[in-house]
């Protein structure tokens, strides 16, 4: 494997950024709508090959992995997958891009948080791609419920976020996303979660005020935060104005209080006046630049054209056909300065239209006695 001089890599990167931005723009305001233009797949493949070649050269750890697994793969589908948990251990940042514009960290479980190296870290030298690609899928799924701009009414501009702002949680990629979107699309945003947690009173007051004013609201929340909100005021109800929308993300990892998705949606309808069709699911993670959405919660998640969703065998990482359950994997074109081929610990199933249904987390191996897990030991 030849070693490129940094100036050549920099030029390649600049060209890739320009072409990736063009690809994102070309998808237009409905990047989640199917079917996609026939030429888009070929364009993706061509960009993926360039992104992969760039990352093999620019991300030393990934280059070593590729070499160990047989050299440059024939296509992005054959590229070695990097488990997302390795962001805790390995710097997966392109080496020649400086300075860093953002450092995002995974939330981790309570036990993980105790260890200095327990949280995954994704260093993002340049947020250009991130910021360019986040709006169209969000608007299509969350603000318009899957409708085209021509068909949908104007989106609400009064927002309530149970997700902390980027000011409150600067190392959260989700906070960066919602803050950037709020700055662009909201006229008024109530940030109800700060460093000390959810201010339920503030959130309920914002909902009450919007309901009294008969103004629709966009509610952004993790599933756990929404449950916290509802639990904080048992029996309290508000009837949000028609046109109100919600985005739910995340699950209940490591939490003691959990709810089935259907139950949570029913509660949102009952307590907030938000019907199920007004709630969208978002699927993203610290290790990814792009997000997948379901315009209606509970339906399969759909990815924008710059993100490929895959399901792979846990042992071999071979891609599984639709209908087979396996580990959720991605090729995210926009992870340019990190690694694009990733595999998670999430279980899922793809349908024939490449819609993803999540099925929880992969179970660990059967416990074998006194061995400590990394989380329990915390010795590094």
């Amino acid at each position, binding site marked *: 494997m030849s070693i490129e001089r940094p100036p050549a890599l920099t030029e390649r990167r600049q060209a890739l950024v320009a072409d990736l931005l063009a690809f994102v723009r070309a998808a237009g305001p409905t990047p989640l709508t199917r079917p996609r233009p026939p030429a888009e797949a070929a364009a993706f493949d061509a960009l993926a090959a360039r992104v992969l070649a760039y990352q093999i050269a620019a991300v030393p750890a990934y280059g070593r992995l590729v070499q160990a697994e047989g050299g440059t793969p024939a296509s992005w589908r054959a590229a070695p997958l990097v488990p997302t948990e390795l962001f805790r251990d390995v710097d997966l940042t392109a080496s020649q891009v400086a300075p860093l514009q953002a450092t995002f960290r995974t939330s981790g479980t309570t036990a993980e948080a105790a260890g200095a190296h327990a949280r995954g870290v994704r260093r993002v030298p340049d947020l250009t791609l991130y910021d360019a690609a986040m709006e169209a899928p969000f608007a299509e799924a969350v603000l318009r419920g899957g409708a085209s701009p021509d068909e949908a009414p104007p989106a609400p501009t009064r927002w309530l976020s149970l997700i902390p702002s980027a000011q409150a949680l600067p190392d959260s990629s989700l906070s960066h996303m919602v803050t950037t979107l709020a700055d662009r699309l909201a006229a008024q945003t109530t940030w109800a979660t700060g460093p000390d947690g959810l201010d339920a009173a503030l959130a309920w007051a914002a909902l009450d005020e919007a309901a009294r004013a008969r103004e629709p609201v966009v509610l952004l929340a993790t599933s756990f935060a929404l449950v916290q909100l509802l639990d904080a005021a048992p029996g309290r109800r508000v009837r949000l104005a028609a046109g109100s929308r919600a985005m739910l993300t995340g699950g209940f990892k490591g939490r003691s209080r959990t709810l089935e998705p259907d139950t949570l949606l029913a509660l949102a309808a009952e307590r907030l006046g938000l019907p199920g069709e007004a709630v969208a699911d978002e699927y993203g993670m610290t290790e990814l630049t792009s997000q997948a959405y379901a315009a209606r919660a509970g339906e399969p998640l759909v990815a924008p054209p710059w993100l490929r969703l895959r399901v792979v065998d846990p042992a071999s990482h071979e891609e599984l056909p639709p209908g087979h359950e396996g580990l959720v994997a991605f090729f995210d074109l926009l992870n340019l300065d990190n690694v694009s081929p990733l595999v998670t610990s999430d279980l899922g199933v793809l349908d024939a239209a490449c819609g993803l249904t999540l099925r929880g987390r992969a179970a*660990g191996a059967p416990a074998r006695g006194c*061995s400590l897990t990394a989380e329990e030991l915390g010795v590094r």
Partner: protein
Amino acid sequence: MSGAPPATAWARVAPLLRLGVLDAGPGAALLRATEAMGFSREVAAQGLAAEVAAWRDEAALARALAGLPASLDAPSLGPRLPREVLLIAARTLPASTLREVFWARLLGARVRVKPARDQEAVAQAIAAADPTGGVQVAPFASGDEAALNAAVARADAVVVLGSDTTVADVGARVPADRAFLGYGHRVSAAWCARAPSDEEVLGLARDLCAWDQAGCLSPQVVWVRGAGGHEAVAARLAQALRKVEVTLPMRLPPGAARARRVALTLGHMQGRVWETATAAVVALPSGAFRPSPGFRVLWVLPADPAALQSTAPVLSSLAYVGAAEDRPALPPWVRVCAPGQLQRPPLDWAHDGQDPVAGYLRPARRGGDGDGG
């Protein structure tokens, strides 16, 4: 009972030695139950046979009993032998449960074994070996507080094998006038102060394959002194493993595949990987301790004294290669042994620093107390 156990004590233990006869009776049942836990027949047979055989080491037994007070057999205010022991077995290896049953019976106590979930067959096989009914199986759900409290209340001594959380929880329920032995989560490792001999490398390979790296005595990390020495040792370990695994096969359960893949990916990204038919040896450049995902994935790291010291609080045993004067200073609860002996703790081993026999004794009574037990 200090020194050699009396004939009556041996009479209680002798039937349990039948558990080492693995082709018939309770021994065969124990072997089947151990295989049902996922071990190959060969691994299960070797491990069980080794544990039972340890009880034929009269010298080790004498050493273990030597510290017992002489007054145990007579009524006194001093420490007293337990009459009933509650043994809470975690999802550990049968070997650790077996050892505690042996101790309890040797000391004359009835043993009630609360098996781990899905491991009732292991406890049943052990109980079946004792024709006097001295070992009974007392299953109840782990979350059943009432059953746990009742079981603790009737026992003179409680032994727990499990997580630190479980040990602390159960220990808090044991009254002060009862005995308590808690064995929590621990790890083991190896430290090579010099390049190991071929025999020593083979010993480490055997330590890894015995019980498929499960349990607190299995090595998770091998530290090697000398620049680049760890990669050379890793390569030699892989060679040795290829020999050992022929007679100690292992099938990787589906649930373990993902964690192994993560470990191998890390190895490829940061160091070097050697894979064998059943095992993986991963050499990494950092000496920081890292728990293994198990199932014979062994980290081989540059020796890092600070990493060893930071691991010491949770270290059970350390296989050591080198001169005595080069041995790192370690807390007293860490057993230091030769490679190949990690999975063969002697009977007088102070498991986690606790006296294996004296820990069963009920504390001394204050003068004037009624005989509560």
